[in-house]
């Protein structure tokens, strides 16, 4: 799956990227993680508060850094459905 971190390169955005990498490793997922700093692309997702987490072109989170457990749930859920996007019981997106 493709994970994008949207952010302007601020501290919180880097923290989210780090957390996402750790979660991917913990869950043993196949994923490439990209940090998007281009505002034109960020805005295309309709995101107004950074950092945001995008999985397979779907916005799963914006404006906050989730706890490790929540991140595992989001990424774990997205990997099992296989159809892309995040499926965390409708609670995150």
């Amino acid at each position, binding site marked *: 799956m493709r994970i994008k971190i949207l*952010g*302007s390169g*601020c*501290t*919180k*955005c880097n923290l989210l990227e780090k957390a996402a990498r750790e979660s991917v490793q913990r869950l043993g997922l196949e994923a490439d993680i990209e940090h998007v700093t281009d*505002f*034109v692309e*960020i*805005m*295309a*997702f*309709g*995101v*107004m*508060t*950074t950092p945001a987490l995008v999985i397979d072109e779907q*916005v799963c*989170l*914006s*404006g*906050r850094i989730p*706890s490790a457990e929540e991140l595992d749930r989001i990424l774990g859920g997205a990997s099992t459905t296989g159809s892309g996007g995040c499926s965390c019981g*409708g*609670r*995150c*997106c």
Partner: protein
Amino acid sequence: MDIFAPLEALANWLTFDVIGLAHGSAFGEALAFFLYDVPKILLMLATIVFVVAIVRSFFPPEKTRAYLSNTRLYVGNVLAAMFGVVTPFCSCSAVPLFIGFVESGVPLGVTFSFLVASPMVNEVALVLLLGMFGWKIAALYLVAGLTVAIVSGIIIGKLGLEHLVEEYVYGIRVGEGVIEELTWRDRTTYAKGYVAEIVGKVWPYVVVGIAIGGFMHGFLPEDLLVRYAGPGNPFAVPVAVLLGVPLYSNAAGVIPIVSVLVDKGMAMGTVLAFMMAVVALSLPEMIILRKVIKPKLIGIFIAINAVGIIAVGYLFNAVL
């Protein structure tokens, strides 16, 4: 009844009975003040930040934008300034927020009212003002901050400066945003996390600030600053604002120091103007905004705000 009375009693008991310092001694009074004020301010901070976070969870920027799009001058500016207080905002998000607002038809002047109010009237500043100077000063700060935000936005709107926004901004296509549906459990989790984040970040400033405040209180002469920064010096306000603009500090670091300045004779209007300049006109935010607006508009924005803040300073010095 003072709900903090037990804390005060505890601080006095520790200082005068347990440690055994004498009542009325400079060191004893300073320590009692410190032991009472630190837990008091931190408790107030945690409580109010929690309440504010719950309120904020109802106002994500996507919703605020929807309320503000196609509003008109005046009404739009007033709404934007009030939303600025309750919508969560950090300067890292200034650019996407700016683009999102402008793209969805929020007028430029209204957008600026939001951008001024949001950092200036923040909960940390209000709590500290409340704790150190009482509710009247905190309320005055709130009203003055909103007024500066509203008036600056109206002036920028009237000047018709849309051409000073970088052209590419108007060409950006903004995608359909999603608003998270939150349950009450999500809201309280968010609020607790926010309290931990804010209090975790500001407590060292509060402790150090109060310590410096407490000890300077006892050891420096009362009228040290009266001559330079008292109500009698007409240059004090502009100088304080000019000093405040390049200082980028959070309100938590400034206010305890500021309380000492007041103690030593600096006029209240000058102090509030200084604080507003520090929190509202931050250099890093200007640098970030440079990505979407031209330098001339940044200059106008800073100038209008600085004038507004100076006016507030003079007004308070005359009234208080």
